[in-house]
Structure formats: C-alpha cells, structure tokens
C-alpha cells in the first residue's frame, strides 16, 4: 500500500525518507528476511516480530479445488470486517477457477487480479513490508508454497465523523472541519479545490509511529523555492514519533525562542483552501484535525475565515476591533498599573478620587494586586480547559464569585482591577487564532513588570522591544511583519481593511507566488459592466 501510494506522488525525496525510516524500524535481523515458501514458518515469523500480539488475527483456509492451504492475516480493529469477509474470504473460497495447474505463482496472480474484489491489491515479498501494511490496516493473504503474499486494502474501523469546527467557529460559512484521518482531510480540501494543480507530496515521519504527513500546494501559484525549503525541512526531521501537528510545527519553525507563532494551524478546510489559493502551503498530519499553514505572517493571525464571507464593511470594522482587542489584551493591566502608581495626573479628577477610594485599605501594591488577579484568572482558565464541560461551568461560577465579588468585598483587591483584568481576558478571547492569544498572555506579564518598575516609560520600552523582535522574525524566510514592514502597498487591501472582493485583484505580494493575478481584468470589466446594467 505504501509503495503504491508513493506512485501517486511526484516526490523524489520520499524515496530516501522511506528507506531511512524502514531501516531504523527493524529491530532485529529477522525483519529483513523474505517470506518463506512454507505457510506456517511465515506466519510464525510475523507473529514473533509482532510479539504474538493478541490483535493480530489469522484466518486459515483451504481452497479445496486446488488443494492449497492459505491464511489471511489482519490486525483487529484496523480493518473493516465486512470488506474482509465479502471481498477477500468469500471470493477465495468460492472461486472455482483457482487451480494449482499453472503453479502456485499463477494461482497467486489469479487470486490477486481475478478473485479478490477489494479496491486495491498488491504483492509483497518481505516480512517487514507485510508487517507495516498490516499495521496500516491491510489484509495479508498468503498461500502455502509461495514466497509472495498479497496485500488487500481493507482499511476501516472506527473513525470520527466530520463535525463542526471546535476552535474557529463562524456564523456564516462552511461547517465541516478536519478529522483525525488524513485521507478524509485531503479529501475535504480536494472537495473545495477541484483542480489538477492541487499537488501533494507525502512523507512518513516518525521511526516508530510512521505517521503519514502530506504537504499540499497549488502548482503554478506557490513559489518553488519556498516549496523546496518546506520540503527540505520536512526531510530533515528525525524523531521517534509524531502525535500531533505541534510536533512538526516545533521541528520546522525557524525560531523557537519567540512568544509569537510563525506557523499557523487551523481545523477548517476552507481556511486551508484559502491559504493554498494565496500561494501558501498546507501540511496535513495523520491523527490530528489540525493542519499547518506555512508561511504565516503576523497579520494573518487577525484574519478570520468569516471576514471573507460577510460583507466587506463589517469585516473591516471587526478586523479593526480585533487589533484594538489585541492592544487591550496586551497592555490593559500594565497601563492601569503605570497610570495608578506613576502618572496620577493623567487620570481625570473624579475618576482618580473614585479609584483612590477603592484602594483605601487594600494591603498590596497595584502591581501585586494585578499579578494575583491575572494569575488567578490563568489558573481558572487552565482549570476550565482541563476539566470536562460539566465541571467547567461550576469552576467558572466559583471563579466569578471568588475573584469578582468576594475579593472586592473583602477589600483584598479593588473593583477597578477586577474590571481591568476581566476586560483584558475578554479582549484576549477575541483573537481568531489561539496561539496569537498565547503570545499576548505571555507578553502581558512582562509588560506588567516593566510598568511596575518604570511606568509608562517602561511600557514604551517594552513596546519598542516587542516591535524590534517582531520585525526581526521570519517565517520560512519571509519577514513576519510583511505587508507592514516591509511595506507592501498592494497588500493593504487585506491587512487592516478587507476591500470588496472585486477590488482584491491580486494575491498578496508578501507571500512569494508565481501567479499574482487572482481575478483578471476581464472579469473585472464584466463585473463593472454588470453593475452598470443593473442600475
């Protein structure tokens, strides 16, 4: 199966990846061995290599006309039993034509091409290949006296349905989301982009887990150099296992020591398709509904799928709101600390008196107060995420009562601080992508420290440092702040604003691509003409 999949892809690099991972997977010399001509020793060899695992099932049979013994091996749970019975076992037992007259190899050939009605079949000679195939859900058929075996695709078993996206929800827009199965995921993308130019390359990464990884790109749009760079980084991964896209993300990102994410992830097929159309690449990993989008730029984390589904005016306003929320989430508590402990003259008099009244009797400085509240909130949030849904709500009730009311009434914290912390927390949730929200959470604490020691001056220093750092970041060689710094006039169509569809004629220039034109002049003139007609 693996070999056959490789035939579908054009990657020259996958060859050596396979060899490497195969070589590493073999723990003893026996794995290299070919199948024996006799049935039972082969079965025993496979059983031994798999440690006599209980879920390796063997179904022996006898073809009476030909007087040949055979066996079907499969791993329970990875296969669809219905397929196994109707497309493999039944045909083998029913087929009258199977005869030993032409020799055992002819019988095998006959079985593979005429008898088995499974959707995909192939032959193997090495035990190692057979085991890998078994573990990816194929059935392995052997005949006594033949040193080859037949693999038949019977993959099945339990898989999660395509459900609504859990993280990036929209009011208007497609409601499907990726699942844990990579085949479903590629199909979901292909259903959006029915074009022969949607190309993919496959890797098997993880010496032990042998996880399928697929890199998709639009041929003719995506930049070749960028494609080579991403492929190169994927080639170089050496790890025992990949359980989630986060593994790949950490292994291929350019800069680890930064609070900002330089790779985007999504569980929305439409977001992945949109990225492909902009010349980005999508990395799908088997076993997780989160796919990676590379390269990722700063502004991208403020764009939600829905921006493109709603009308442009509200999309633009909401996008501006997100940038505002980002600022609040990052600076809220620090500005409050700075202003109330250093710059009292900045606060309007009535507000100052009211804040001063709240602070009467509060035993700790504003900074410590903010730190306690922020930490408490992070603890609550973490508790809410880790606990199940049912307990999660009770945590939030306790949290609201403890943090909000009781703490203020007990005079431990000021009401003003509670308002600031909760406003910050809510602003934090506005971020369309969770990982940009994490950056603001981390930086918020750093800025609070600066504010407590240097006031607004410290905040200014912090902002300068953050800006310098952002401008210094790169995602796969592309400046992270692209479209803003370096400035791309053309791209302003989709940074702070979201222009009407027919004005966004070109693909973003920040991401190198081979075909700039998204919508050609022809279409535009027709569009304008069409408008003229209707008026």
């Amino acid at each position, binding site marked *: 199966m693996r070999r056959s999949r490789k035939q579908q892809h054009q990657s020259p690099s996958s060859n050596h990846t396979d060899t490497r991972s195969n070589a590493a997977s073999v723990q003893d010399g026996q794995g290299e061995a070919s199948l024996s001509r006799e049935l039972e020793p082969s079965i025993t060899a496979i059983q031994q290599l798999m440690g006599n695992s209980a879920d390796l099932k063997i179904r022996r049979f006898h073809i009476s006309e030909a007087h040949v013994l055979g066996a079907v091996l499969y791993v329970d749970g990875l296969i669809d039993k219905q397929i196994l019975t109707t497309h493999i076992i039944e045909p083998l037992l029913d087929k009258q034509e199977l005869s030993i007259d032409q020799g055992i190899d002819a019988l095998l050939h006959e079985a593979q091409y005429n008898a088995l009605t499974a959707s995909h079949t192939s032959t193997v000679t090495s035990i190692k290949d057979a085991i890998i195939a078994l573990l990816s859900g194929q059935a392995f058929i052997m005949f006594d006296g033949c040193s080859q075996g037949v693999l038949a695709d019977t993959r099945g078993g339990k898989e999660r349905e395509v459900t609504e996206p859990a993280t990036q929800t929209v009011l208007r827009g497609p409601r499907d989301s990726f699942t844990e199965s990579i085949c479903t995921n590629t199909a979901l993308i292909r259903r959006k982009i029915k074009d022969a130019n949607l190309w993919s390359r496959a890797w098997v990464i993880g010496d032990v887990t042998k996880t399928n990884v697929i890199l998709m790109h639009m041929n003719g749009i995506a930049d070749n150099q960028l494609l080579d760079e991403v492929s190169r980084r994927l080639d170089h991964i050496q790890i025992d296992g990949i359980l989630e896209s986060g593994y790949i993300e950490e292994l291929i990102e350019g800069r680890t*020591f930064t609070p900002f994410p330089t790779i985007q992830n999504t569980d929305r097929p439409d977001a992945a398709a949109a990225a492909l159309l902009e010349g980005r690449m999508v990395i799908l990993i088997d076993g997780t509904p989160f796919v990676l989008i590379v390269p990722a730029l700063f502004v991208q984390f403020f764009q939600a799928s829905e921006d493109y589904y709603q009308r442009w005016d509200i999309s633009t306003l909401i996008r501006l709101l997100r940038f505002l929320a980002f600022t609040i989430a990052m600076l809220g508590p620090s500005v409050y600390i700075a202003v*109330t*402990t*250093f710059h*009292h*003259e900045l606060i309007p*008099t009535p507000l*100052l*008196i*009211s*804040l*001063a*009244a*709240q*602070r*009467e*009797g*509060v035993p700790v*400085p*504003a900074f410590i107060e903010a730190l306690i509240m922020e930490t408490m909130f992070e603890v609550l949030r973490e508790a809410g995420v880790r606990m199940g849904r049912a307990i999660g709500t009770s945590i939030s009730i306790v949290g609201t009562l403890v943090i909000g009311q009781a703490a203020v009434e007990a005079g431990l914290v000021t009401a003003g601080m509670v308002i600031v912390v909760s406003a910050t927390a809510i602003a934090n949730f506005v971020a369309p992508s969770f990982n940009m929200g994490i950056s603001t959470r981390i930086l918020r604490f750093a800025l609070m420290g600066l504010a*407590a*020691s*240097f*006031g607004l*001056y*410290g905040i200014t*220093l912090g902002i*300068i*440092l953050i800006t*310098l*750092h952002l401008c*210094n970041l790169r995602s796969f060689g592309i400046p992270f702040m692209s479209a803003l710094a370096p400035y791309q006039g053309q791209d302003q169509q989709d940074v702070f604003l979201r222009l009407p569809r027919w004005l966004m004629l070109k693909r973003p220039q920040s991401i190198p691509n081979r075909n700039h034109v998204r919508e050609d002049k022809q279409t535009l003139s027709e569009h304008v003409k069409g408008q003229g007609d209707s008026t």
Partner: protein
Amino acid sequence: MNRLTRCFLCLIIAALLLTGCWNRRELNEIAIALGVGIDKNDEGYKISVQVVNPGAVAPQQNASANTAPVITYTLSGATIFEAMRRITTISPRKIYLSHIRIIVVGEEAAREGLHTFVDLLSRDHELRTDFYLLVSRDMTAEKILKVITLLERIPVNKMYASLLSSSAAWASTQKVTLDQLIQDISSKGKSSVLPGINIVGNPKIGATQENVQRLDLHALLQLEDMAVFKDGKLTAWMNEAESKVFNFITGNVKSTVNNIPCKEGNLALEVLTNKSKLTADVRHGRPEGKVKMELDVNIGEIQCEIDVTQEADIRRIESEAEDMLEREIASLLEKAQQQFRSDIFGFGMALHRSSPEYWRRVKADWHQEHFPAMKTAVEVKVSVRGIGSITNPLSIPD
C-alpha cells in the same frame, strides 16, 4: 540571538540611566489635594490645603459616610513651599498637587501682590496650569476652604462647578487659569482680573457639620464681584453689573440675561452670542481705543405692553439695548481709566499689535499715564433673533 541580547542589555542600561522624574506611589499613599488657599500672616504665608477623604466620597462604602468628605490642613511658613512640606507633620500622606482645581487667594495676600506665589505655582513640576484662581473677598482663604457644602460634597468641586456654570450661563465671573494669569502678569499691556468668592451667612457654623443639616443652609459659598489688579496687586473690586459689562467687552459672554427698561416694567433679553472686537490705534500722536460689539439676543421675558409682532417695536428694543450697553460700557471704561488706572481690557496689547513703535515709547507708564488719557469709542449692534414660544404678552389681546 547574541545581537538581540546585546541590544536588550543596552536598552536596560539606558532605561536605568534615563529615568527622569518618576516616582512610584500607590493611590493610597498620596493625599489628593483639590484646593489650596493662600493667606498672608506674620510668619509669611498661611497655606490651607483641602484634600479628599476618598473613603467618604466613594459611592459604595457607606461605612464612613458620616465622616467629612474632605480635610482642610492649615499651616504657616516663610515660603509657600516650606509650608506645603510642613503639612506632612499633620497629614499622614504627602500632599499630591497635580489635581488642584481651585486656588483661593486671600484678599490681603492679593493686595500684596500675586508675583511671589505665582512663582512657586509655575515652578513646581507637580502642578498643572489648568486650575482656576479665585480671590476671597473680605475674609481669609482659609475660611472659604472650611465651609461644608451640600450637593457637591467636596467644597472645591462646588466652587469649580459654580464657576463653570456661572461663567457659562450668567457671565458675571470669568474662569482664569494659571497660565492666563502668568501671561497677564508678564505682559505690560493688560492687567489681570480674578473672580471673587465670599461666604453668604455664618462662616462659623458653616465650618461644622451642622451647616448641612437644614434646608436653608447656614453658610453658602457665592462667587461675586471681580478683583481688579494693577501691577499684580489687587486695587479695586468690580461689582456684579460691572463684571458682566467687563465680560461683554472682553467677549467672554457665553450666555447671560440683560434687562432693558420698557415703559412701566422691564424686558429681559437672553444673550445668545457675543462677538467683541477690541482695537487701539494712534491718531494725532494719541492712542485711541475702540470697542465694537455684536450681540444676538432672544426676548426672554416681557413685563410691559409691547407688540413684538411689529418689526418697528423689535427695532426699538434693539436700539434701546444698544444704547444701554453703550452707556454701561462707556462708564466702565471711564471707571477703569480714572479710578482703577489699570488696563484690564488689554488695549495696551492691541496697541502693541497695531503700532509697535508707539507702544515701545509708552509701555513703561501705560497704566498710569497714557491709558487714563486714551480716547474711547463704543459701537454696539444688537440683533433680536427670536421672541420665544409665545408672541405677544398675555396682557395684549391678539
């Protein structure tokens, strides 16, 4: 990474060196002063500072609601700065001056001159320049700052709010901020004017909680009259009517009410807009000042029998109002020239603009000699814009 580390270190070092006048103080470590009173005594100056007692003015805490919303600390010192610092001996917290809204100058201190304490007020970095100055009439500033008020529980806020509302709706007062005062003091061509404040009623009971325990308060703070300064020293007071005329001349009237006689009764005009232009020229070697004014008014109240539907009658009202204002303006100008001998209107500044040569020669003794001798002309134009919701007075059947 290495470069970033170095860059970061440089910034941290720079941050440590560059910190200017920063000072970390929690909100419950400062005493927020809202008003300051300055009086003269034998020792030098007597300073009264009104600071907020936040616990008592907070909306939700009822526990300390029966304590006073503010505390007024009073101490003396040779300089104001000294007295201000000495207040820490009686106040648990350091006085924080950035939020001052009103400074009350005692009449006696004002007569000795504003220069000395304006210096401190403008030199201290903590003070902003956007607070208003008042002069307490016939009493010390200390007494003014010790009256307990109602409605606005913080007395300084009461003064502040009265000043804003009276200058907006009645125009007998003028808001003067510190920077305006400094500008006036440092320029030779204009003298300063500050609004006055007084206690109506009994100051003694006014300083106790008893003051606010009945409907007819024992003591009230009233903004009245305006103090006229000459060379930074208080010389005379203008009464309410004169203060209003003064504001007309300087174009400070936002809205007010002016009465004109009308047969057996009065007719009240509500002034809507007031455009005033003050010019000065040199003619035949002598300065000549001119006040040109345009007013838009509404008829607010009619006590006599007059037909306001007739254009002729409206014209009559207009010319009556013009005459009256011209008379009042002329008499205030004369009073300023002859009695105050102080150019509170700023004719000197206008002259400086129109003929700088001449100004250079006369500026030394402008207030004393040339301003009193200046010829003045007044031109007022009044236009009635509206007559209100009804037409004729009820006594006239339609």
